[in-house]
């Protein structure tokens, strides 16, 4: 579903992502782990077509994001780490806008907005302006907007930050549901327990370079993901 091939991105002299290759297949929840500034957000933004990159290739369902960004974006949903949404819209207006862009039919959007707004307990607040939303409510709205066009690939940057325990639990279930239906999830997180419980595969990145990847069992072996992560950080230091 998502192939990252020898991705390299530099900012001036700093190499944010260095020759990174990853392959996320349909049905997989793929965790992306690394310390602050490791290059996770840069990689994620490049995969969503938000940020240009210097070399390498990114394929979404076999289509190059460089050559046909619109075709790729129509299959992707992106949830950023900090949900800055249009504060001049109400929640429902924002969802309607996203649904219009993805050309979601009238029946489908009604059904999916109703479903996910109920799941995230946001239905009553949909008529409120987004400027009146708390951080958590904005995060929920960003998640709902990502789900209402039934994407094949969901790319998320720290999706659980700001979500209450109930919403985080619901999101985990939804993530699993998407993968069970043939979709794929690629997300970054600092919460290693979440990654350990939720992910089928995981990749650890440091200073833009991939230092370990594979199935959860391959990466952690007999220890916990946390010990592996700390060990790798120390080894590399």
């Amino acid at each position: 579903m998502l192939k990252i091939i020898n991705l390299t991105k530099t900012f001036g002299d700093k190499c944010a992502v260095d020759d990174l290759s990853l392959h996320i297949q349909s049905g997989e929840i793929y965790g992306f782990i690394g310390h602050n500034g490791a290059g996770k957000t840069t990689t994620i933004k490049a995969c969503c077509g938000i940020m240009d990159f210097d070399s390498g290739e990114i394929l979404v369902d076999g289509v190059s994001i460089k050559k046909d960004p619109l075709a790729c974006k129509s299959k992707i949903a992106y949830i950023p780490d900090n949900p800055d949404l249009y504060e001049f819209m109400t929640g429902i207006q924002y969802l309607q806008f996203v649904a219009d862009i993805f050309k979601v039919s009238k029946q489908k959007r009604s059904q999916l907005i109703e479903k996910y707004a109920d799941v995230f307990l946001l239905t009553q607040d949909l008529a409120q302006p987004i400027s009146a939303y708390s951080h958590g409510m904005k995060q929920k709205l960003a998640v709902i907007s990502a789900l209402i066009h039934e994407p094949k690939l969901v790319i998320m940057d720290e999706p659980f930050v700001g979500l209450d325990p109930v919403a985080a639990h619901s999101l985990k279930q939804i993530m699993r549901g998407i993968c069970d239906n043939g979709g794929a999830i690629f997300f970054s997180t600092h919460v290693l327990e979440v990654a350990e419980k939720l992910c089928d595969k995981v990749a650890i990145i440091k200073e833009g370079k991939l230092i370990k990847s594979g199935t959860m069992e391959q990466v952690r072996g007999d220890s916990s993901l946390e010990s592996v992560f700390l060990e790798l950080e120390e080894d590399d230091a």
Partner: protein
Amino acid sequence: MLKALIKKQALELMSFLFKSAKSGRRRSKGSILLYSVLMIYVAVVIGFMFFSLSITLCSPLVSGGLDWLYFSLMALFATAFAVIFSVFATQSQLYEAKDNELLLSMPIKPSMILFSRMLTLYLQSLFFEALILIPALAVYYSVCGFSLYGIILLFVIPLLALSLSCILGWIVAILSSRIRNKSAVTVILSLIFLAVYIWSYSQINKYISMIITNAQQIGQSFKNVFPLYQLGRAFVGDIADFILITAMVLVLFAAVYAVLSKSFIKIATAKHAAAKRRYVRRELDTKSVGSALFRREWRRYLSSPTYIMNCSLGTLFLAGAAVYVLIKGSYVRQTLASIYNFNSQFQSITPLIVAAIICVIATMNTITAPSVSLEGRTLWIIKSLPVNSADILSAKLKLNLFITLPFVLFASASAVAVMRFNLFSSVMIFVIPLFFAVFIALFGLAVNLRFPNFTWSNETVLIKQSMSVTVSIFGSWGIMLLLGVLSYFALLVIQPVFIMSVIAVVLVITDIMLWRWLMQKGAKMFDKL
């Protein structure tokens, strides 16, 4: 502790001088000096304005025995001036101060926080009142000699303005937090303020003459208006009225201060939530991608009074000019006829001048100039969605044209209807402003793609002072000036009809080229943002 609080308030008050609102960084010494000179210049200009007013009013009123009326009027102006400028400061420094909760969490008495805030607000009111009262007193003393009452009242009257500002600021804070459509209310109030300002400015001389000519009658009427009569008499030295006015002001201020001091914690931490709107499930409509993008721009525009008032004033003035020309049609025709009698050649260039006037007014609509930068921190949304950049730019252009073109056409139609030009000139009066307005929209967007800014924290600074808006406004004026100069020299050798045709053709070609550039290269530039 109080000293530290006052120092903090003073730093906050003067921060605009030392810190750039745009970057948040400390200004350079040269910049501080420049701003200081500018502020002093503005104060001197306002002071001089009221000095002239004082000179005009003082002698006639004093010679008529109405020196109290002179002070009633000047004190009334000063208080109104101070209240208008202080009411929003009261709101931001007292009721909605960002550091209220932080300071209340520290071991500081709430009364001390309030006192430091009130002191700063008093100094602000004193400054605004002094701009009017110092020239007024200076003129009066030069005519009638010095007296101490006026000087004392100069320091007492700001307490009245401060008390009124506190009361009004409280009402504004409550209303602004409870009103759902703040944007519309702000725009309507701003328009009313603008209309009143323009009207007052145009009528001021008439009213000053009226006051001077009918001073005795106005004085008689004022005598019945409590406490204006007493206020005027207090300034001229009537001890009873001086005590009465001073006592009234002090009592009012003490009452306001007592109420605030008693309820400061409640006020400072109050959250006046707007009535919550519950979502009611309904059938959802669908829109095409183009309509959805246009709607997004439209909603952004309507949500920001700053955007509306600063970037579409042209619409207001075009509508105003069109209505004025229609109402005063016969007067416009008579004026033109008298000019034609004096200079018959003027008749042939009138259509060119009319088209130029409409174009100049249309340059005030700079909606596209900050439109790319306004994406700000939400740029990720549109960039992650499957939308062509050309469609995004088109939606921004459409908004500008939607708000500008109908009014350009209205202004052209009213000019043509009233001034009765020949067919060709009439067509040109439609064509030139129409394509010039399209050019302004295209030009603003192109400039913003060249000078984007997504790191702003203050929308007002972006809309009023950003590089793209500045370049767009001055660039369009420069182009107008260039066209004017070229037309002036061309008129020496060719007919105005020919010049208008050339301008129209140049504008059409420029618009097409700029449009193509935006849809191709401009879209690629947007992709790379």
